[in-house]
C-alpha cells in the first residue's frame, strides 16, 4: 500500500514536470550557482523584496520570465562552482545555453572554443563594453573579444562584529574598528581580542577548504609586490614573500586566533551567532549580514556590523585578490529566435545590475558605481575602495580553479602543521607547475 502511494506520488510528480507550461515560447537553459532557495523565493518577481545572492538571482530570473512571455528560461542550480559538471556537459555536447562562469575560469573554456564571443550580440541589444568597469571589461575579455557578460566584481572582505570589537577595545573614537597595519599588529590585536572577549579574532571556514586559503595568499603576495605569475605557464610560490604569509596564518592558527573546524556554512552561522570578531568572506554576504544586523535580537544587532577591505599589512602595492561573475554563452547552432532570446536575457541582466549589486558585489557597470542609489546602499562607503584595490591573476593563467585547490591544500597542510612550511611551499610550486606544464 505505502509502496504504491510512493510510486503514485513519484509518477504524478513526473507527469507534472512534463506538463509544465511551455506555450510556444523560445526555451533557454540557464545553469547557475549561488544556491537554491525556491521555498522562499521560488515565485517572487518583486526583486526589491529579495535579499542575498540566491534570493536576488532567483527573483531576477522569475521577473525575466514574467516580463518576457515569448521566452522561457529554465534554470538548473548547480553546486558552487559547478565546473565539474559544466566540463562533463561540454564533453557530452549537452551544455546549457547560458551559464555562470568566473572571470578567472573563462579562459579554460574559451581557449577550447566552447564559448560564443558576445561582442556582436551585445551590440545588437545595445550593451557596449565601454559601459563596463575596467575590472569587469578586462576580466571578460579574452583574445580581444568579450566572452561573458560581467555582472559583478567581487573580493574578500573583513566582516566585523562591532559589539565584540568594542569589548576588545579595538574601536577608534569615531566608532570605526581599529584594523592592523602589519602582520605583527594583526597578531597583537588578535591576542588582545582573545584576552578580552574569550573568542577567536577570525571566523574562517577552514574545514577542507581551499579557496579561502588561496585568496588570502594571493592578496598578501600582491601587497608584497611578489609577481608570482610573471610567466602564466610557470608559478613562483616557494618564495620568502609566500613564506611570510603562510607563517602569519600559521601563527593565527597555532595561537587559536581563529575558528578551526568549521565548513563554509558553519562559519557563516558562527559569525552570525557572535562566535568571533572578523569573518573572512566575500562581498556576497554583505547584504545578508546587513539584513541580520537590522534584525532585533541578533548578535550583529547588538553592537552593529561593519565591513572593510583586507587591511594593508605590507609595504607593497595597495591591492587584494579579486574576481568577477559573468554570464557566458555556449557555442552551439541556434535559430535567430534563440540567439535573440539570449540577447534579451543578457540585456536584462545588464539593466538590472543595480539589483544584483545589493548582494554586496561591486557593480560591473560604471554608471551604477557612480549612481546615488548605489552609494546610498549600506556600507558602500567603506567597501567601494575595492574597485581600485581589486586585482585578478593574469588572465592568461589557465586552470585557476585547479591551481586554487593545489595552493589551498598545501597551505592548509602547512598551517595546520601537517607539513613543514618550506616543504609545503615547495610542493605547492612543483604541483602547480606540473599541472601547467601538462595542459
Amino acid at each position: 500500500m505505502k509502496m504504491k502511494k510512493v510510486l503514485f506520488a513519484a509518477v504524478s510528480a513526473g507527469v507534472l514536470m512534463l506538463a509544465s507550461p511551455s506555450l510556444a515560447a523560445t526555451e533557454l537553459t540557464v545553469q547557475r550557482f549561488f544556491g537554491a532557495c525556491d521555498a522562499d523565493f521560488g515565485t517572487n518577481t518583486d526583486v526589491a523584496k529579495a535579499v542575498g545572492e540566491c534570493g536576488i538571482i532567483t527573483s531576477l530570473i522569475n521577473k525575466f520570465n514574467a516580463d518576457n512571455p515569448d521566452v522561457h528560461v529554465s534554470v538548473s542550480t548547480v553546486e558552487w562552482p559547478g565546473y565539474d559538471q559544466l566540463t562533463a556537459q561540454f564533453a557530452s555536447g549537452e551544455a546549457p545555453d547560458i551559464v555562470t562562469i568566473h572571470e578567472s575560469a573563462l579562459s579554460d573554456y574559451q581557449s577550447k572554443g566552447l564559448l560564443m564571443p558576445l561582442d556582436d550580440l551585445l551590440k545588437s541589444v545595445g550593451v557596449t563594453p565601454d559601459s563596463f568597469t575596467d575590472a569587469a571589461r578586462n576580466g571578460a575579455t579574452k583574445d580581444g573579444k568579450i566572452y561573458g557578460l560581467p555582472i559583478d566584481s567581487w573580493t574578500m572582505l573583513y566582516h566585523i562584529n562591532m559589539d565584540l570589537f568594542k569589548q576588545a577595545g579595538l574601536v577608534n573614537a569615531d566608532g570605526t574598528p581599529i584594523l592592523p597595519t602589519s602582520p605583527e599588529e594583526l597578531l597583537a590585536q588578535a591576542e588582545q581580542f582573545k584576552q578580552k572577549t574569550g573568542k577567536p579574532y577570525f571566523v574562517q571556514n577552514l574545514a577542507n577548504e581551499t579557496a579561502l586559503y588561496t585568496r588570502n595568499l594571493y592578496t598578501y603576495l600582491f601587497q608584497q609586490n611578489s609577481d608570482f605569475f610573471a610567466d602564466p605557464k610557470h608559478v613562483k610560490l616557494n618564495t620568502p614573500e609566500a613564506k611570510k604569509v603562510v607563517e602569519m596564518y600559521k601563527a593565527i592558527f597555532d595561537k587559536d586566533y581563529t575558528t578551526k573546524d568549521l565548513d563554509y556554512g558553519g562559519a557563516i552561522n558562527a559569525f552570525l551567532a557572535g562566535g568571533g570578531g572578523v569573518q573572512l568572506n566575500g562581498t556576497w554576504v554583505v547584504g545578508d549580514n546587513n539584513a541580520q544586523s537590522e534584525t532585533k535580537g541578533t548578535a550583529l544587532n547588538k553592537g552593529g556590523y561593519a565591513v572593510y577591505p583586507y587591511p594593508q599589512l605590507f609595504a607593497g602595492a595597495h591591492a587584494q585578490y579579486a574576481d568577477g561573475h559573468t554570464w557566458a554563452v555556449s557555442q552551439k547552432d541556434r535559430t535567430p529566435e534563440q540567439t535573440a532570446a539570449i540577447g534579451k536575457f543578457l540585456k536584462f541582466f545588464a539593466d538590472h545590475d543595480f539589483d544584483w549589486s545589493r548582494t554586496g558585489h561591486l557593480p560591473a557597470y560604471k554608471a551604477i558605481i557612480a549612481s546615488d542609489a548605489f552609494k546610498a546602499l549600506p556600507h558602500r562607503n567603506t567597501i567601494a575602495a575595492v574597485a581600485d584595490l581589486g586585482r585578478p591573476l593574469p588572465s592568461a593563467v589557465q586552470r585557476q580553479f585547479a591551481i586554487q585547490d593545489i595552493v589551498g591544500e598545501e597551505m592548509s597542510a602547512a598551517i595546520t602543521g601537517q607539513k613543514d612550511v618550506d616543504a609545503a611551499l615547495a610542493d605547492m610550486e612543483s604541483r602547480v607547475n606540473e599541472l601547467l606544464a601538462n595542459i
Partner: protein
Amino acid sequence: MDDRRATPRTALPAAGARTASVDIYAPQWRNFIFVAPFLFFFTTLLLVPLFWGMWLSFHKADTFSSGNFVGFGNYIRLFHDKVFLQSVWNTFYFVLLTVPTLALIGLFLALCLNRRTRTAAVLRTLFFSSSVLSVTIVTLIWRIVFIPNVGLLSTIYGWFGATAPAFISDPSLAMIGIAIATVWWCIGLPMMLFLSALQQIPQDIYEAAALDNANRWQTLRSITLPSIKRTFVLVVIVQIVLQFQLFGQAWLMTRGGPNNLTKPIVLYIYDTAFRRWDLGMGAAASEVLFVLILMAAMAQYLVTRNKAGQA
C-alpha cells in the same frame, strides 16, 4: 513448478520423423545465439573501453582534444605524483580500517543474533537496513552527525561541555570518520553472510559438545569458528574488493581533504580526468587500479580453489 516441468513433453511439436540420434552436446554454431546478446554488451561496453583506456593511457589527451602518443609518460608522471602515491596509501589505509572492523563486528552480531527470538529478528532487520540506503543519503546522515554546530556529536559533547572531535576536518581523524560511516553503511552484508554460515553448522555437533560439558568459549573456539573459517575468508576478500573502490563517501564527506589525506584512488581518477581534464593520466591511474583489483581477484580465486581442493 511440477506442472511446468511436464509441459514440454505435452507441448512437443509433432515432428518426430527424425529420431534424436544427434549428440546434443556436440559443438554447434547456432548455440552461440544464447550467449551472443550478453557478449555483445560485454565486448562493446567493457572490453572496448578497457583497451581504449589502455590506449588512452599512453597518450596526452584532454577532455576536448585527443593528443599525441607519449609512451609511458603518463605513468612516469603518475608515480612521481605525491598525491597519487598518497591516494594509493589512503586506499590501503581505508581498507585496513574498515575490513577487519566489518568482519569482526559482523561476526559478533551474527553470533549474538543467531537465535529465534523476536528481538533478534528485529535487530537483524535493523542492522541490515542501512545497507539498502544509497551512498549520498549515508554521507548526508553522517555529515549531519559530525558537522560542528548542529551535528549530533557536537550536541552530545555539548551536554558535557566538551568539544566534539572534528571527524571531517582533522587530518588524523578524517579517514576514521569516513570509515565509521562506511562500517555503519556496510555492516549488514558481513553479518548476513556469517549468519547463513552459522546456520549451516550441523546442530548435533553442538549437542555433543554440550554433553562434554564444554563451556561457551570452548564451543565457540573449537566448533563455531573453525566451521565458518571459509566464510570469514570470503567476507574479508569481498570486503577488500568493495572497500577498495571507495569513492562516494570520501568525495561527499571531505572532498578528499584535508590536503588529500582522504583521497582514494578512484577519487584521484575522477579528479584527474574530469576536474583537471587530464584524460591520459586519469586513464593511466585507472590501469593501476585495475591491476590492483586484478591481484585481489586472483587472491580470491587462489583461496577459493585451495579450499575447494582441501574439502
